[in-house]
């Protein structure tokens, strides 16, 4: 399952961008594959992933969780990466690309601040200027990550337009790129945006399923699982976990979206459930919008899943039926987070907790091998977990 020459997965993808971005996006499109497939790039990338990020991440057999669901559950421990989530796989890849394209100034968007932190981190590592756009509302909601970015030397610019959250931070980053096309590299945080970003980010995140193959071979005697479960905001951790199994029909690919307060309430981020086909941030995909084509605001307790679109790969997996799309509400995700903490001693990110919550919605056979992609750790969510714990008691 690959993109065609115009960057489409089936009906979805492409580059719907104003002429002001044509040169930059085209420059990227013409160069990315050649650069990232070169030996020199791959050596530096793999070396940093090993020595700096701490890869490979373990594929941990979760014994007590498996017992509870009466099947074999493995956790792919992306939470153990440097900076606490899968996001850094992508920022390491893109910063090496930016350097090879002689860009001096890095811009990024962030919602929860995880991608912002991962970008600020690699900019510090490479000694490059870093500007992170973040919705004014998210800056208030995610103060610890704002502080981390600042400590890492990044400038955090509030996005004050529109609804002042992730989609507007993305708009602001794109506008910055339009105004600074020569020296600036836009380091996007998920498998979204105009071609070639979705494909490029998926390739950088594909390290997740690449490692899974050999780890599963060793642990189960077969290099593929029966099911892979991952949460979907823009879709990068899921794309990475699915990547090497996209064409292996033996593997069920399960994507979990944030239902928020419930799909029927409208307070949700479950894009495939209530979204329709259209264009967001330069990509044709599924998105949440009204009949006038105005993009609407998503809602989720998890800032990392609070995006009104999904990457074009996921829109294609949904429409073609290759992917199974489930949802988990705020409540279900919280319960799953407390459960994992108690059973396995691992505090997951709220985003990853949505993937774990899906375990309750699937009928497992006793000896299936199931991988849950644990995309991040819960440090950033402690305030929410503590508050909600008190509410539960």
């Amino acid at each position: 399952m690959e993109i065609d020459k115009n960057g489409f997965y089936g009906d979805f993808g492409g580059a719907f961008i104003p002429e002001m971005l044509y040169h930059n996006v085209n420059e990227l499109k013409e160069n990315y594959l050649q650069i990232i497939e070169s030996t020199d790039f791959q050596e530096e990338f793999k070396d940093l992933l090993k020595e700096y990020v701490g890869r490979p991440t373990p594929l941990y057999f979760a014994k007590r969780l498996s017992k509870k669901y009466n099947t074999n559950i493995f956790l792919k421990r992306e939470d153990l990466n440097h900076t606490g989530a899968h996001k850094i796989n992508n920022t390491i890849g893109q910063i090496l690309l930016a350097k090879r394209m002689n860009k001096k100034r890095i811009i990024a968007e962030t919602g929860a601040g995880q991608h912002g932190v991962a970008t600020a981190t690699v900019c510090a590592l490479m000694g490059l200027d870093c500007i992170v756009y973040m919705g004014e509302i998210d800056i208030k909601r995610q103060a610890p990550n704002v502080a981390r970015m600042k400590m890492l030397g990044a400038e955090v610019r509030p996005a004050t337009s529109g609804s002042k959250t992730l989609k507007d931070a993305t708009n602001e980053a794109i506008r910055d790129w339009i105004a600074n096309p020569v020296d600036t590299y836009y380091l996007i945080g998920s498998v979204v945006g105009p071609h070639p970003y979705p494909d490029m980010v998926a390739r950088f995140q594909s390290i997740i399923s690449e490692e899974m193959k050999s780890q599963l071979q060793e642990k189960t005697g077969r290099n593929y699982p029966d099911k892979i479960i991952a949460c979907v905001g823009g879709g990068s951790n899921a794309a990475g976990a699915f990547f090497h199994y996209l064409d292996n029909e033996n593997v069920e690919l399960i994507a979990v979206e944030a239902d928020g307060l419930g799909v029927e309430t409208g307070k949700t981020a479950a894009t495939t459930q209530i979204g329709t086909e259209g264009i967001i941030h330069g990509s044709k995909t599924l998105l949440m919008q009204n009949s006038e084509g105005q993009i609407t605001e998503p809602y989720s307790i998890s800032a990392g899943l609070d995006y009104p679109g999904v990457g074009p790969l996921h829109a294609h997996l949904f429409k073609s039926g290759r992917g199974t799309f489930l949802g988990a509400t705020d409540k279900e995700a919280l319960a799953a987070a407390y459960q994992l903490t108690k059973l396995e001693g691992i505090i997951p990110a709220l985003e990853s907790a949505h993937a774990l919550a899906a375990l309750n919605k699937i009928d497992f056979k006793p000896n299936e091998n199931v991988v849950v992609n644990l995309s991040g750790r819960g440090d950033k969510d402690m305030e929410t977990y503590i508050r909600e714990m008190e509410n539960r008691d």
Partner: protein
Amino acid sequence: MKRIENTFQNKRNILNVYITAGYPNLNDTIEIVQKLKKNGVDMVEIGMPFSDPLADGPTIQNSSQIAIKNGITLELIFRQIEEIRKTVSIPIVLMGYYNQVLQYDDTTFFEKAKAVGVDGFIIPDLPLDIYQKQYKSSFENLGLDMIFLITPQTTDERIRLIDNESSGFLYVVSSFAITGSKSDIEQNQIDYFKRINNLNLKNPRLIGFGISDKKTFDKACEYAEGTIIGSAFIKALEKSKNIKETVKSFIVNIKK
């Protein structure tokens, strides 16, 4: 002859003014266009307010948000244009984003726009190749113009391609910018305008982005058939107590 083509044949130093439909009040669109025409504006560009206008700066973003809150819809914009067409015959260009067109249903959208008297479109995020494949032949049949942008980074080869595929005029983006930035025209911009003029293009050009007053208008007119003014006019409307007076003094100041 098509209205846009006719305007370029008969007029010089063309002034095209951008307004956001439904701004400052829902139905002001009609009066503003009437007054623009009365004060000698040669063409109007009506913006269809969008929640996520990637190519627009803070002024137009803000006016778009207000217009959406005011309750503007594509249907209403079409009705307003129908009303405007009763008294106004200068070209009308609709500006908006491709998602809006798709949600309305693209074929119906263009037919409806044609029926109410729209002459051309600026859809910045519509890729040239999709226009070629999906819309060009129906545009030729309907007598509509699709106007594309060119920027300082657009290569000569690509400018020629865009010129060849589009009609009406070329929208020359004056600098590396979203709408509303900058206030002067610098030497490197002049070099860029001259480079375009030396290409012997089929379409006339209007320079836009950063044209805000008489000085920049006059300067831009030296290097193209005319200009487009957007944010500066929206800013004038922001402060306006009397639309009629605001339009008059704004246009008189530029054309004097």
